[in-house]
């Protein structure tokens, strides 16, 4: 801005207010967590660095999982403007498929196997099978239900809602397979024995789960792979161009339909991969689909739809706020305040959207 502000310009102040509030809040939160935090579970980080580190790592590892799932959602939205409301159902079905495959690879059905009986292949093969199967379902969904109505945002969202209702009911009707009558039970898979242990980080004496660190690694790996794919290959370039301007890309003679199909398959497979991870990390049950649809929505809304960096930012913000607010809100008796963390998390998200409707890294609508 070339011209200096001569007089006190209150409108400028109002426009800058969000930034000021954001900076102020962040600084306050940092100071609170690091040095102050009275009547909280752990007290400030300088008094209890171990708990601070664990909270941080919990946040980062959860963010990694959220990124894996939400990046698929974001990819599909960014390219096709399809709000895939069946994303959570894809994750759920992927989780059950991974469970069934691991069961059949280890003791041939029955209750959960111990991680000591599980090697790396017993984990990887189920994840790959789940990703492939859901990729296939994604392809069918896209070709049959979404190909012919591109551009009709709302209609496509509604179609995927209907599909999610059907998938959720089908999962409850048929899974787990070995159970004759108690369908719809919660199931989980085991991490490979090699990573299902704690490791000493040699920082503040913290012991941390290797499985969770692996999850973090997997998230980073997915992120790098996506980045390489989108920024270093021809398909990726077409997809990015498509995100920028669908008509123009189409006009350039690229077969955009093939690109759409590829992106949808990859997006759905990422949901299933996330499902396979989540099944080992927590387990899936018939309410998981709604949870993860919501998680994915929140991450991409906050980060900005269709942006891979936005998805990273959204996942980090959501997971860190979630973790830190649970641990660092004051607890003044039974009815306050740690349990308000979910409310607080979502209020924060609404505020982010109020000031940046397009999300942190999104382009204006």
């Amino acid at each position, binding site marked *: *801005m*070339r*011209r200096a502000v001569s007089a006190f*310009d209150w*409108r*400028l102040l109002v426009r800058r207010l969000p930034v000021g509030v954001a900076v102020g809040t962040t600084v306050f939160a940092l100071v609170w967590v690091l040095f102050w935090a009275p009547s909280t579970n752990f007290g400030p980080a300088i008094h209890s660095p171990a708990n601070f580190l664990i909270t941080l790592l919990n946040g980062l590892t959860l963010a990694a999982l959220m990124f894996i799932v939400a990046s698929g959602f974001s990819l599909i939205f960014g390219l096709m403007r399809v709000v895939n409301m069946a994303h959570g159902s894809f994750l759920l079905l992927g989780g059950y498929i991974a469970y069934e495959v691991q069961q059949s690879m280890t003791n041939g059905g029955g209750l959960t196997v111990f991680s000591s009986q599980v090697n790396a292949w017993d984990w990887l093969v189920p994840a790959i099978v789940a990703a492939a199967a859901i990729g296939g379902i994604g392809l069918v969904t896209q070709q049959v239900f979404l190909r012919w109505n591109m551009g009709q945002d709302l209609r496509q969202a509604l179609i995927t809602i209907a599909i999610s209702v059907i998938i959720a009911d089908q999962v409850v009707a048929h899974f787990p397979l070995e159970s004759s009558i108690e369908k719809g039970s919660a199931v989980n898979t085991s991490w490979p024995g090699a990573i299902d242990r704690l490791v000493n980080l040699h920082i503040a004496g913290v012991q941390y789960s290797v499985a969770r660190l692996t999850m973090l690694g997997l998230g980073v790996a997915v992120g790098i792979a996506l980045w390489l794919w989108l920024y270093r290959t021809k398909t990726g370039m077409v997809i990015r161009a498509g995100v920028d301007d669908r008509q123009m890309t189409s006009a350039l003679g690229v077969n955009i339909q093939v690109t759409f199909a590829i992106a949808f398959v990859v997006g759905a497979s990422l949901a299933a991969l996330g499902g396979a991870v989540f099944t080992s990390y927590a387990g899936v049950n018939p309410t998981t689909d709604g949870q993860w649809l919501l998680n994915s929505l929140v991450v991409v809304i906050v980060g900005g739809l269709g942006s891979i960096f936005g998805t990273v930012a959204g996942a980090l913000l959501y997971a860190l706020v979630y973790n830190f607010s649970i641990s660092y809100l004051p607890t003044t008796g039974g009815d306050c305040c740690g349990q308000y963390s979910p409310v607080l998390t979502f209020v924060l998200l609404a505020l982010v959207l109020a000031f940046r409707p397009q999300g942190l890294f999104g382009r204006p609508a």
Partner: protein
Amino acid sequence: MTEAAAHAESAEPILRLRGVGRRFGGLHAVSDVDLDVIPGERRAILGPNGAGKTTLFNVVAGDLPVTSGRIELFGRDVTREPARQRAKLGLARSYQQSRLFLGLSVEDNIFLAIVGVGRGHLRPVVLPRKDAELRARAREAARRAAIDGRLGDVVGALAHGEHRQVALAMALAAEPKLLMLDEPASGLSRGERQLLTELLLALDADITLILIEHDMDIALRVAERVTMMHEGRVIVEGTPAEIRANQLVHDLYLGSHYGSEPEGGASG
């Protein structure tokens, strides 16, 4: 009154730009524009595609914020005012591609233009007498733009030329002090152009008019002064005769092809 006399009087300008610039990333769509338009003046802004004319309109109307400079409207600094405040002061504009409310009828479109500069935007009841008066004004504006035959039709169903007429009716209906028209003739047939020219010439003398137009016949017939833009800057300003005679203008513009210009920013 002649153009020269009008300028010699040098009334307080109705619009004054000083050092106005607008950047899109690294692209300078408009840079360092100074402009004075006095009350009652007819001004044409000419220039080849991408000269920054529409962007200039957008920053003057407030649809885009400036990245530098200062805009005064009716003697008041409006650089930081939103578009709606400038409209309230008496500025009306049209768009290169007509921006109409396609889901509403012709009459409702014009009605909105009238209510917009007046009061009662938020009135949630129908006041029969008040609304009848406003609608009578809307119909009158429609008549002046010769679109009163389609008052009840949904704008989405009209032809392109009729869209232009509705846009003009809306601009007139607001009873602006400053009217800015962005290529009102583009896409019109010869007959429609003739009609348009007559409409513009018959415009109330109190209304100040700024016109972007590719059709030189219309522009030079209607305008008293012409501003030439090129690559975001004002290069020449003068009467139509002076412009016709200017070699630079010939090189840059009159020799080049005519056509619509896809410019950056919120032009469409």
